[in-house]
C-alpha cells in the first residue's frame, strides 16, 4: 500500500515500501503558473530531509523543491526536461520529479496527511 504525505513547502511524497516518489502539489503548480523549466537532481545523489533537491521555474519565478524525507535519488522524471508543462497538467501524477530510496520511512510521520494538507492550503 502506498501512502502520500505533504510538506508545508507544498511537495508531496508517495512511499511504497522503501521507494519514495516526490513532486509538487496541485496547489503549488497552480500558484506557480506555467512551468517552463525543471532542474532535477542527479541519480545517486543523497539528499537530507528538507534539503534542496530540484528547482522548478514558471514564466514568473524560480522555486526550490525540497526533499520531504531523506534518501538517495534512484530515478528522475526526464520527460520533464522536454515537456515541463506536465507539472501543470498532472502535478501529482505524471508530473512527478524524482524517486528516492528512503533513508528512514519513519520521517513520513512528521508530514501532513492529505486531509491535513487540504486544511493547510485553505489558510494560504
Amino acid at each position: 500500500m502506498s501512502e502520500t504525505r505533504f510538506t508545508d513547502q507544498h511537495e508531496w511524497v508517495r512511499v511504497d515500501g522503501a521507494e519514495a516518489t516526490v513532486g509538487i502539489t496541485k496547489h503549488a503548480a497552480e500558484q506557480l503558473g506555467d512551468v517552463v523549466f525543471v532542474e532535477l537532481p542527479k541519480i545517486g545523489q543523497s539528499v537530507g530531509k528538507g534539503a534542496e533537491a530540484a528547482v522548478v521555474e514558471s514564466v514568473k519565478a524560480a522555486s526550490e523543491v525540497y526533499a520531504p524525507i531523506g534518501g538517495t535519488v534512484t530515478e528522475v522524471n526526464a520527460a520533464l526536461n522536454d515537456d515541463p508543462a506536465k507539472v501543470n497538467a498532472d502535478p501529482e501524477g505524471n508530473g512527478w520529479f524524482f524517486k528516492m530510496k528512503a533513508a528512514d520511512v519513519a520521517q513520513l510521520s512528521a508530514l501532513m496527511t492529505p486531509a491535513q494538507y487540504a486544511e493547510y492550503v485553505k489558510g494560504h
Partner: protein
Amino acid sequence: MTDTTQILRKTPLHALHVELGGKMVPFAGYDMPVQYPTGILKEHLHTREKAGLFDVSHMGQAFLSGDDPARALERVTPADLVGLKEGMQRYGLLLNDAGGIKDDFMTTRLAGERDLYLVVNASMKESDFAYIAERLKGIATLAPQPDRALLALQGPAAAAVLARHAPGIDALTFMKVARAQIAGIPAIVSRTGYTGEDGFEISIAAADAARLARILLKEPEVLPIGLGARDSLRLEAGLCLYGHDIDETTEPVEANLVWAIGKRRKTDKDFPAAEKIVDRIFNGTARKRVGIRPDGKAPARDGTEIADKKGRVVGRITSGGFGPSLNAPVAMGYVETAFAADGTEIDLLVRGKAMPARVAPMPFVPHRYKRAG
C-alpha cells in the same frame, strides 16, 4: 503569501479584472492582474497571434501647457520635442542632473492643440510629475490626469478589431496619435504599444473605461492579458523595463538608447548632463546594455551575475525569463563593453553554476509595427 500592509490603489478596471478571474498582485502601488485563468504562456502567445487587451491605467497621464511646452520640456529630456510633428508621439528619457535616467516616457503633440500629452511609468509618476513641475516652473504647467484610464490593444488583429468600433482608425500608422470616438467614447488613440506587435494605446475618461474594455473583450480575437505576459512580451521585443533595465544609475548611452537623443539636441547640448552624455556617444561607455540568449533551457533572472569564460564577473542581468514565442529563455543586462559584441560567449551564474550563454541582438522577436508607407 507576502504580508502587505500598504493600501493598494485600484484602476477603473479593477472590478472587471476580478470578475474575469484575474490573479491580483501588488504592482507599482496598484492591485493589478498578473494573469487571468488563461495563464501567462497562452496570454503571451495569443497577443502575438491575435489580440490582447491590457489595462495600463496605472500609468501616469498629464497635459503640459504653456507658451511653448515642447521647448520647456526639453529642459529635462534629450528628445527632440520642438521637432515633434502634430499628430505624432515620441519616446523620451527624463534625466537627472548627473545624466541618470529618472524615467522613460511618451510625449504626444495632438493635431491643432497647444498642450502636450504625456504618459509616464506608474511607479514613477508622482516623482516625475513633481520633477517636471519644479524644473518647468514659470514656463509650463503640468496637469496630471488621474481621472483618465489607459488601455492597450496589442497584436496583429488589433487594427481590425478597433476599426469595427472606430472606422478609419487604421489610417493611423506607427507612432501616430489622434483624438477619435471608439464606440462613441471620446478617446486619444495612438498606434503604439510595448509588446513589439502592431497595436494601439487608448486613453479615455476613467468613467468610460470598463464599458470600452467590455466592448473590446466581446470581440472574438481579444483576450484580457495580465502583467506577466506584458513583461515577457516586452522582454522578447527588447524593450526596457524602468527600474530594472534603466534607472537613475544608468545613462542613455550605456543603456543603448542613443536613438532617444535628438540630433539637434546633441549639437545644442541643452539637456541635463549634456556634455557628459555627448562625450559618451563619441568616446564610448564602460558598459553596455545587451541582449542575452542562454544556450540551455534554464531562465536567468534579474540580478544574475554574468561572467567571462574565466569566471570573472563582467556584468549583471537586469531582466530575464522565459520567452514563450521563442520557447527559450531570454535576458538583457549590462556587460563590460569588451563583452558587448553579438555572439560573445559568456557564462550566467545561476544557483552557483556557470550556464553558457551568448550576447545576442535585440529584439529577440522581430517588431511588427505598422509603419507609414
